[in-house]
C-alpha cells in the first residue's frame, strides 16, 4: 500500500539522512533538503489516502500489536506531520545561512553536529506523531528529548549548557513518570494500543494514578504552567533555529500525547473537573506568560515567555472539546491554533535570530537602529505578531475564533474572558518590539551582514501564518478523519 510505505518513509528518510549526515558532514544541508522533499511527497500521498480512505495503518515488520509496533495516520497525525515538515523545511533553509554567516570560529564545528541532530529530531517527531501505542510514544518522546537537549547545548556557552542540563533533568524525570504510568496501564488493561484502550479501560484507582503520573510528566515536558520554568532559559540561550524548533514543535509533541491519552485512550476518565483543571492551568499560563513577556528586557526571552503563554491556549481545548457531542469546534480550533503558533513562533525566533546576528545583542530598548536596516525581518516579526495576537485573517485568528465560538455556545464565559485578555496582552508585547522598527535614528549603527535566505525564510513563515487562515476550513475537514470528538464545524444558528 502506498500509504503504508509513505508512513514508513516518513520515519526512515530523516533517520537515514541523520546517519549519513553524521558520517558525511559536508553533505549535511543537502541531506536536510532532500529529506524535506521526500517528506513533502510522502505527506501529500498520505493526505490523499487519508481523505479518501480514512485512517491508514502500517504494521512495522508485519507484526501487529501487541507485540509489534503499529503506526497510524489519521487527521490529527497528518496535521502534525504537515506542520513539522513545513517548519523543518524552513529551518533547513535558514540554518544554511545561519552557520555560514558568522565570523565565529566554532561555527563549522557546530554545523557539523547540527545537521545530524536536527534530522534526528525530525525523525523523532514523525515517529511520535505516527505512533499508535503508548509505549512507543515513550521511546519517541525520549528520542525527541535527547535531540532537543543536545541541540540546545550546541551553542556551547555557559548559559546554554546549564539550560540544556536542566532541560535534560526535567525531560528524563518526566519521561520516567510517563513510563511508570504506562506500566500501570499495561498491568490493568493488558494492552498498550491506543485504539483498544478505550474499550478495555475501567475507571479505578490504578488508572487514575497511572493517568496522573503520565499527565504530570507530559505537562512538565509541554511546559504548562507551573512546570514551565525550564523553557525560557533553554529557548532563549539556544541558537535561533534551535529555539524555533523547540517552541514550535518539541513542546507540541507532549501536548499531542496528552490529547491522545485523554480523548482517545481514556475518555471515560475525563470528568468535567479534570477538563476544567487543564483549562485553568492553561489560563494561568496565558496570563502569567504574557505578563512575563511584557517585562522582559531581552528579545529572545520575551519570545520564550510568549511560547509559555500561547501553549496555554492549547490547553483550553480540554474543557471546550470535552463535550464530546459538540466539541469538534474546539478541537479544530485548538489544533489550528497549534499550527498557527508553530509557524508564527518560528518566524519570530528566526527574525530575532537575524536581529541578534546583525546587532550582536538582543536588548529590546537598544534595537532602534537595527530594525531599520533589517526591514524584512522586522516585517516578518510584525506579521508573526499579527497571528499571535489573533488578528484576522491569520490562522491564529481562525484558531481563536473557533475556541471563542465553542466557549460562547457552551456558556463557558470565563474562557472567553481569558482569551480576550490574553489577546490584548499579546498585542502589548508585540507592539513593544514593533515600535522600535519605526523610531527615527540619528545615525545608522554598524552591523554584520545577513544572508538573504535567513530573512526570507522568516518572512515566508510569517506570511504562511497569516495566509493559512484561509485554509482553515480545509484543515478542519482533514481533522475530521479519525477525530475522537464529533459535532458541527460551527456552533450557532438554528441550533440555538
Amino acid at each position: 500500500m502506498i500509504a503504508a510505505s509513505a508512513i514508513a518513509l516518513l520515519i526512515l528518510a530523516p533517520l537515514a539522512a541523520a546517519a549519513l549526515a553524521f558520517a558525511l558532514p559536508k553533505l549535511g544541508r543537502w541531506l536536510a533538503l532532500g529529506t524535506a522533499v521526500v517528506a513533502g511527497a510522502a505527506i501529500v500521498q498520505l493526505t490523499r489516502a487519508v481523505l479518501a480512505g480514512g485512517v491508514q495503518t502500517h504494521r512495522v515488520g508485519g507484526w501487529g500489536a501487541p507485540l509489534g509496533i503499529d503506526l497510524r495516520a489519521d487527521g490529527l497525525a497528518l496535521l502534525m506531520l504537515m506542520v513539522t515538515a513545513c517548519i523543518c523545511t524552513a529551518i533547513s533553509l535558514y540554518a544554511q545561512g545561519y552557520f555560514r554567516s558568522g565570523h565565529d570560529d566554532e561555527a563549522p564545528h557546530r554545523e557539523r553536529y547540527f545537521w545530524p541532530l536536527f534530522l534526528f529530531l525530525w525523525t523523532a517527531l514523525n515517529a511520535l506523531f505516527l505512533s499508535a501505542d503508548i509505549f512507543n510514544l515513550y521511546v519517541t518522546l525520549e528520542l525527541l528529548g535527547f535531540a532537543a537537549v543536545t541541540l540546545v547545548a550546541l551553542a556551547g556557552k555557559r548559559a546554554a549548557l546549564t539550560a540544556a542540563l536542566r532541560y535534560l533533568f526535567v525531560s528524563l524525570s518526566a519521561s520516567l513518570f510517563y513510563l511508570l504510568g504506562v506500566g500501570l496501564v499495561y498491568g490493568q488493561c493488558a494492552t498498550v494500543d491506543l485504539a483498544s484502550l478505550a474499550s478495555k479501560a475501567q475507571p479505578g484507582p490504578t488508572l487514575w494514578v497511572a493517568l496522573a503520573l503520565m499527565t504530570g510528566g507530559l505537562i512538565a515536558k509541554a511546559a504548562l504552567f507551573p512546570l514551565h520554568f525550564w523553557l525560557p532559559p533553554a529557548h532563549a540561550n539556544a541558537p535561533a533555529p534551535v529555539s524555533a524548533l523547540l517552541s514550535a514543535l518539541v513542546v507540541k509533541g507532549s501536548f499531542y500525547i496528552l490529547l491522545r491519552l485523554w480523548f482517545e485512550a481514556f475518555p471515560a476518565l475525563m470528568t468535567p473537573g479534570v477538563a476544567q483543571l487543564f483549562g485553568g492551568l492553561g489560563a494561568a499560563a496565558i496570563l502569567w506568560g504574557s505578563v512575563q513577556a511584557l517585562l522582559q528586557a531581552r528579545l529572545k526571552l520575551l519570545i520564550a515567555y510568549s511560547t509559555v503563554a500561547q501553549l496555554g491556549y492549547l490547553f483550553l481545548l480540554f474543557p471546550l472539546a470535552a463535550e464530546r457531542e459538540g466539541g469538534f469546534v474546539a478541537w479544530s480550533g485548538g489544533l489550528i491554533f497549534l499550527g498557527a503558533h508553530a509557524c508564527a513562533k518560528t518566524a519570530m525566533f528566526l527574525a530575532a535570530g537575524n536581529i541578534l546576528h546583525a546587532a550582536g545583542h538582543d536588548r529590546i530598548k537598544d534595537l532602534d537602529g537595527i530594525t531599520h536596516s533589517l526591514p524584512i525581518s522586522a516585517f516578518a516579526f510584525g506579521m508573526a505578531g499579527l497571528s499571535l495576537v489573533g488578528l484576522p485573517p491569520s490562522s491564529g485568528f481562525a484558531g481563536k475564533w473557533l475556541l471563542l465560538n465553542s466557549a460562547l455556545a457552551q456558556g463557558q464565559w470565563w474562557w472567553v474572558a481569558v482569551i480576550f485578555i490574553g489577546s490584548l496582552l499579546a498585542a502589548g508585547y508585540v507592539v513593544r518590539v514593533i515600535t522600535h522598527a519605526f523610531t527615527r535614528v540619528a545615525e545608522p549603527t554598524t552591523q554584520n551582514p545577513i544572508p538573504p535566505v535567513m530573512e526570507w525564510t522568516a518572512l515566508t513563515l510569517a506570511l504562511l501564518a497569516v495566509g493559512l487562515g484561509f485554509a482553515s476550513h480545509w484543515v478542519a475537514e482533514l481533522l475530521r478523519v479519525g477525530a475522537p470528538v464529533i459535532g458541527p464545524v460551527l456552533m450557532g444558528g438554528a441550533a440555538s
Partner: protein
Amino acid sequence: MPDADHRIYLLAGAALFAIGFYSLLVQAHLLRRIMALNVMGSGVFLVYIALAAQTPGPIPDPVPHAMVLTGIVVSVCATALALALADRVQAATGRVELLDDEDAAAPSDTTPVASDEHKGKPSA
C-alpha cells in the same frame, strides 16, 4: 503466594522511584542527580517486572520484559548524555552544580563572551 510476592516488588519499585525523585529535586551535585535518575529508572523497571510476574502460570508475560529492555537501553544512553553534559557544564562553570543566576547571562549567538574566557569577539 505469587500475589504477595509481586506486590512487595511493586512497592519496592514505587519506593525506589520516589526516593530517586526526591534526591533529584533535593541534591545539588550533578553526579548525584544523575544517579538519582538512574535509581528512578530502576524503580520503574522493577514495577514492570513485578507486573509481568502477575500473569498466572509459570512463564511471566514477555511484553513488559521487552519494554524493560528498551527502557534500559534508553536509560544507558540518557546517562551517557547526562554525564557528558555535566562534564561540559563543569568545564564551563567550574562548579558541579546547576546554578540559577547563570541563566541570566547574555543570550548572544556569537562566541561565548563570559568574563573568564578571553577568546571571541566582544558583542557590538
